[in-house]
């Protein structure tokens, strides 16, 4: 179960970052100016166990920030977040891999980062390799793999953790069709096993196909929340009217 209560996240974007001593001395007497970016505003949300929740919205609407807060990578500026269960995050197209290590070493490192024990990783190792389809490259350095392959590996490990909550941010955009199909298959089995999934995507067909509920974010606020088809229709209409109004203003 995931519960968010009045969560705010504000990023301070300084107009000029002061990280050296001289800049600091100069700026001590001046008030530092920064742009306040409200990435999330008063977001309250409840996700039930076993729910498949889609999150859609434009770039910069706060989708990734929301997932990062739930993954504890970021801290909320204010508000309360409660997460019941262990979380496996897959954020922003890829994971924290070490390019100089082999695929095998990276599986062990990343598995440990996600909270797995040595035995658990050993048990899951063959499955992960098989799912990622990287049998041939087990001993290759990760940096020599294509970006698509890296994402595949990352996703395979994340899925292999068997966490009760999975956060997925835009994974399907990079994988090839074969891998996308594999992902869809695994999504189906997640649903069966009652795992909670938060799924950020611009692929509305996938969202409609898998998600029980969908959250539409805009400017850091929840604009709409409800069943998948209706919300994605609202989103489509919204973008369509915007396009029209842009056209009209150009004319």
């Amino acid at each position, binding site marked *: 179960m995931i519960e968010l209560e009045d969560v705010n996240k504000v990023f301070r974007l300084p107009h000029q970052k002061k990280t050296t001593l001289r800049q600091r001395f100069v700026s001590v007497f001046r008030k530092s100016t920064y742009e306040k970016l409200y990435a999330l505003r008063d977001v309250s949300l409840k996700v039930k166990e076993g729910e498949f929740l889609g999150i859609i919205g434009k770039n910069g609407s706060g989708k990734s920030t929301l997932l990062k807060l739930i993954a504890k*990578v970021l801290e909320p*500026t204010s508000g309360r977040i409660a997460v019941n269960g262990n979380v496996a995050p897959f954020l922003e197209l890829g994971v924290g891999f070490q390019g100089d290590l082999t695929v095998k070493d990276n599986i062990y490192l990343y598995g440990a980062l996600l909270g797995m024990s040595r035995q658990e990783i050993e048990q899951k190792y063959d499955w992960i390799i098989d799912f990622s389809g990287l049998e041939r490259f087990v001993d290759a350095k990760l940096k020599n793999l294509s970006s698509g392959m890296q994402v595949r590996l990352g996703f395979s490990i994340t899925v292999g953790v068997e966490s009760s909550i999975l956060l997925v941010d835009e994974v399907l955009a990079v994988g090839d069709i074969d891998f996308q199909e594999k992902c869809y298959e695994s999504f189906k089995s997640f649903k069966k096993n009652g795992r909670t999934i938060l799924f950020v995507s611009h692929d509305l067909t996938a969202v409609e196909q898998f998600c029980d509920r969908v959250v539409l974010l805009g400017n850091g606020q929840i604009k709409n929340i409800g069943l998948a088809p209706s919300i994605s229709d609202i989103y489509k209409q919204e973008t369509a009217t915007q396009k029209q109004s842009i056209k009209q203003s150009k004319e």
Partner: protein
Amino acid sequence: MLLYTATSKQRNLLGRRNYLYLTLVMAITDFKIKYDNSALGYLWSLLKPLLMFGTLYLVFSVFVRWDVENYKIYLLLGIILWNFLAEVTLNSMVLLEGKASILKKVYFPRWIIVIASSLTSLLTLLLNMVVFFILFILSGVHFRTSVILLAVYLAELYILVVGLALLLCALYPKFRDIHHIWEVFVQLGFWVTPIIYPITIVPEKYHKLIFLNPVARIIQGSRDAVIGSGGDFLCLKNHIIIIAAAVCLFVVGWFTYNKMSRSFAEDL
């Protein structure tokens, strides 16, 4: 139930296990990356202090002569211990940038980064000590039972150095000058600590000043333990001063680090 709010502090150490395993994997990873693509690999970590020792030994036993018994042993031990301090503290700051991609994508207790890297350096220190003891036996210096106390000094040094590393690492993302400042400090410290010269050449009135530095006490104490270089640094009072300093630094480092590390993902 894992529960945290923006204000509550009880957000780590709950809900996740296997931190020990993660620390070990990270230490091994650091080790592998560090010596990747170099022909001599790990040998470098043993060669570096030895080469430094060779250079300094040449200068200070051939060109200049100190009146120190067993100068070889005296010098080598000082260099090994100081190198450990320099390596861990300077590494701790570079570390975060290498780990930025991980920090931005997964949550795990951030202290693991610093502890893991300190373990890698600790392994180097212990292997250096093996080389040291081989030379020690070869040089035919009288063996004392007080050598056991060296382990105590190493433990004290480790706590102190990790505390320093946590503190420096915590400040680094918001205040990057600290890396340059600390580099100069390490240089300065090398010369104001009796590492290459005997304390006897320093005028008496400065002794108190020099031994304000707990690392000077640790180095002097370890020498007393191994070769009995005449000082009175084996006494309990010395240990108490060192441990007090080490624990203070560690506590300050730990809390600063845990506070600052909450925004690492944004600052890096």
